[in-house]
């Protein structure tokens, strides 16, 4: 019996019992579709979070004062019990690192803002003109802080959109003088709506030049410095360069902490990746169940077709011929199930994307291969036993069964 004939014979057998075949293909396809849809959901969530983080600005290294790493009780630790201030001069020095493109110092404090009799609590952020580009913010009105010497305490302010709304309502804001703390500042711009960005809502902030903020809060210390590396790949080396610069400025001792956005992202990436795997694992169990179903259906098929098996033996079929025929049939059914499931799963993922446009719900390739692969292997593995049983049937007794 040639392989082509075996295949044709098995196909005829599978299509000869349409209801049975349809049910089995359905069971198998639900398993595969579950793998595809659930991993699309999990991976979609992962990609959504990663994208959200990337929207914070890309390739960032954040410098904070103080060393949070667990250093031993070294001599250095004893000498500098309190870390030195992180200053604007430090920030300017960081810009000398070759792999750094932009930098924004941050000085933060709480104050009040008043205009035309209206008064509001507000968080004041002192920074540089590059901040708007690093965070990829859009201006709604006017312009952001000027790019000038960081030591210049210009009396200007940029408002978040919500703050502008609350203070000015429908009145024009740009050009007006507002009072922030004990200073009078000119509003030169209003940020576009940015939404929630991890913790503080940018729409409620007042941005002023860093020197202005430091004078206002009477401090030299920076809250942190945000540094942008040339590219994603450059983040690691850039961090190294920044550390070298800081060490040089601190007589060889590193009393700042550098956080890369990558590290934070990586954690989320791993958590959601693991979640996707777990979900895929659960879906794979449904595939194993489908495999057991294949076995039972094939066992029933062997019983149903006992007389036929006896006949084939009488006509000179070898045990191998019969084994292969039934195994091929099981494989065909799982194959049909796997590809139906693949199509159904993609349909489901498409539906998800339609229902939640923000979620990039595409099933990852590995999950698709794993789903189809598991379906085929379980189908074939569980098809072996019925096929062997068929091949071992005693022809005389098989023929006498009707």
């Amino acid at each position, binding site marked *: 019996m040639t392989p082509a004939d075996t295949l044709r014979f098995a196909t005829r057998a599978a299509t000869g019992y349409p209801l049975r075949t349809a049910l089995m293909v359905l069971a198998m396809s639900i398993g595969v579709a579950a793998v595809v849809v659930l991993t699309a959901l999990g991976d979609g969530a992962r990609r959504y979070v990663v994208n959200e983080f990337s929207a914070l600005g890309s390739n960032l290294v954040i410098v904070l004062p103080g060393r949070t790493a667990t250093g031993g009780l070294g001599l250095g630790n004893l000498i500098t019990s309190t870390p030195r201030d992180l200053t604007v001069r430090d920030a300017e020095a960081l810009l000398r690192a070759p792999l750094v493109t932009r930098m924004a110092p941050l000085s933060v404090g709480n104050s009040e803002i008043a205009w035309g009799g209206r008064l509001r609590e507000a968080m004041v952020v002192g920074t540089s003109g590059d901040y708007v580009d690093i965070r990829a913010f859009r201006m709604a009105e006017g312009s952001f802080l000027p790019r000038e010497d960081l030591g210049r305490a210009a009396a200007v302010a940029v408002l978040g959109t919500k703050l502008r709304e609350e203070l000015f309502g429908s009145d024009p804001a740009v050009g007006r003088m507002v009072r922030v703390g004990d200073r009078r500042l000119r509003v030169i711009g209003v940020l576009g709506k940015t939404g929630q960005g991890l913790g503080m809502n940018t729409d409620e902030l007042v941005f002023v030049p860093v020197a202005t903020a430091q004078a206002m809060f009477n401090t030299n210390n920076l809250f942190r410095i945000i540094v942008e590396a040339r590219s994603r790949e450059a983040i690691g080396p850039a961090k190294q360069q920044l550390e070298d610069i800081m060490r040089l400025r601190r007589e060889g001792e590193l009393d700042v902490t550098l956080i890369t956005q990558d590290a934070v992202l990586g954690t989320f990436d791993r958590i959601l990746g693991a979640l996707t795997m777990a979900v895929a694992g659960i879906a794979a169990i449904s595939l194993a169940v489908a495999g057991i179903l294949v076995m039972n259906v094939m066992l029933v098929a062997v019983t149903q077709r006992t007389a036929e098996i006896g006949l084939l033996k009488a*006509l000179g079929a070898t045990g191998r011929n019969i084994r292969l025929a039934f195994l091929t049939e099981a494989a065909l059914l799982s194959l049909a199930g796997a590809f139906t499931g693949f199509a159904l799963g993609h349909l489901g993922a498409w539906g998800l994307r339609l229902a939640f446009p923000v979620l990039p719900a595409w099933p990852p390739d590995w999950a698709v291969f794993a789903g189809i692969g598991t379906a085929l292997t379980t189908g074939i593995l569980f098809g072996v036993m019925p096929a062997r049983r068929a091949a071992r049937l005693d022809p*005389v007794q098989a023929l006498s069964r009707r």
Partner: protein
Amino acid sequence: MAQIELSGIERVFKLGDSEVHALQELSVSIERGEYVAVMGPSGSGKSTLLNLLGLLDRPNAGTYRLEGRDVTTLSPDEQAEVRRTRIGFVFQSFHLVPRLTAAENIALPLMLAGIPPVERHTRVAQALQDFGLEPRAGHRPEELSGGQRQRVAIARATIMRPAVILADEPTGNLDRSTGQDVTHLLEELNASGVTLIVVTHDPVMGGRARRRLMMEDGRLLQDVREPAPA
């Protein structure tokens, strides 16, 4: 040398503690081209004998030589090969595969033998013509009459040009006239040189055979060579 030589064949079925001697001390030889009817009461071992001759079953003792070769000691695959190439079966209940058409049922032995589709096609077409089944080629068994079904089964049994045709009550499920047609068909094949061994309860059909083996309790009671007086 006879085509079929059985000597000292025993076939015992064990049912719990009791033993059924389906065949005992059976020795018989059949020449190429003979027409043999196997007769006897129910349970006398006729089907058991036929299954043995067709290598579907093995004896507990004795030897079976087919065309000079001891076939009882062959491996299962070698036995399958002998069945495929030397033996054609015809059953009382036809045993057609229900989902396959008449033509596909006839082609089954060719497919199992791995004969290429082109040759298969011409041989099946010839068989359909020989057995007057051309208009029924694409019909499935459920769409055929009993006589047509048995003709399909006979076409299938002969498509590999076997040396021996074994028929177990081939007319048992047919009415008298279609049964006669089938008998004539088998006799025509025998006339062309194929050995024909038929199990039958019908004395008329048995009477047409040139040799009758009368069985009882698994033993060969009588071996009658001449046509019985009508």
